């Protein structure tokens, strides 16, 4: 089994703001640096899409490494799913950043709505997926598995709840 460290990529992103006047007009320029903690590589960017491409490259490598012993078809499928998430992030990510700079409060509200939406969806998914009939003759070990799963879900819900509360306080 892969360890959590092998399945984790952390990034440190630095933004440096430059405000200046040019031809009598105020301008702002963002300069950034993104570092991949586990690998030590870094890249500078003035366009946030370059930072996203850097992340995508590192994460693709992570997925490729984790699936290198899988059959080719399965590996391709996992990689495609991994990349489709990235396409979404690359489309939405820069927009979120720009909007946050323009109107932080509005963005907090958006994020809060998204979180609430995810909590609701999660609740619906759980109720759909738990089919009680299959568990009527469950063994002790099955029950332990259920308990562990419930604990995991409950812990995730608590985290989400804390985040929502934190966002509420920031308002």
């Amino acid at each position, binding site marked *: 089994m892969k*360890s*959590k*460290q092998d399945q*984790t990529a*952390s990034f*440190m992103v*630095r933004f440096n703001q*430059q405000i*200046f*006047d*040019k031809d009598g007009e105020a301008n702002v*320029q963002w*300069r950034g*640096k993104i*570092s991949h*903690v*586990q*690998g*030590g590589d870094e890249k*500078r*960017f*003035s366009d946030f899409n370059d930072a996203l491409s850097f992340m995508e490259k590192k994460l693709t490598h992570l997925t490729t490494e984790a699936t290198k012993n899988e059959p080719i078809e399965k590996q391709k499928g996992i990689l495609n799913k991994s990349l489709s998430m990235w396409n979404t992030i690359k489309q939405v990510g820069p927009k979120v950043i720009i909007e946050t700079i323009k109107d932080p409060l509005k963005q907090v509200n958006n994020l809060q709505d998204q979180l609430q939406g995810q909590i609701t969806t999660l609740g619906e998914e759980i109720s759909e997926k738990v089919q009680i009939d299959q568990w009527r003759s469950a063994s002790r070990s099955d029950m332990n598995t259920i308990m562990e799963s419930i604990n995991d879900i409950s812990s995730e819900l608590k985290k989400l709840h804390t985040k929502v509360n934190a966002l509420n306080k920031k308002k």
Partner: protein
Amino acid sequence: MIELQEKLQQLETFKENATIRIQTLGYFKIWRKNIEVSSKEWGRDKTIQLLQYLISNRFRHALHKEKIMDDLWEDGDDSVFKVALHGVNKVLEPDRPSRTEPTYIVRQGISYQLNSEKIWMDVDALEKYIIIGNEALDSEIQISKTAYKKAIELYQGIFLPNRVYEDWSSEEREKTQILILGAYITLAEIIIEDNPLESIRLAQNALNIDSTWEDAYRIQMKAYILKGNRPQAIKSYKKCVAVLKLEYGIDPLPETQKLIKEIQEIS
């Protein structure tokens, strides 16, 4: 003025009187009653790792044991944590009577936190000196200079260099780098008229950390002109142009371009 001067003095006194002193910048070293703790006393690396993790997270509330385990040794069991914690306490307080609470690692239930009010740490002191430097900048320039110099003396290199690939140490490393970059640049600006050569050196230190820090190139250009070295000022500008082009694909800011025009017009 007295208040800021007192704060500076308090930092010095705290360092002199602290039973435990920890260096995290450039090297990791600990002094207990002014004697450096030897590597033999540490025993295993997990002991050092736990203490470094607690230093990195010292501003957070007490950290739950499970979180610490999850961040450091996800496959380890309770005994791994117990042994490492025992090791840390043994290094910090070798003479502590059994069944008494540790002084430096504060426990709340099964959460733990470093008591940073009783331990002198370079990374803490550096931040406090820079805060004093910033506060004194407009009104007490001498205190400001002293405070920045003290901070710069403490910066012996990056935070916990042996943990650069561990994500729990990244936040503190980044924060310290930004603080010290600011200290180099601000001090270089303050002293540029009196000591341009020192300003050039300080700006170079900033560039050694981040070669794209444009303020540092401008300081070097101004300082070289003050020293009457126009070719070197132009060389600094050219270096700035090359680095920005290579790293970002952009030109220097209008302020830098204006400065080079002024320099070129000097006959």
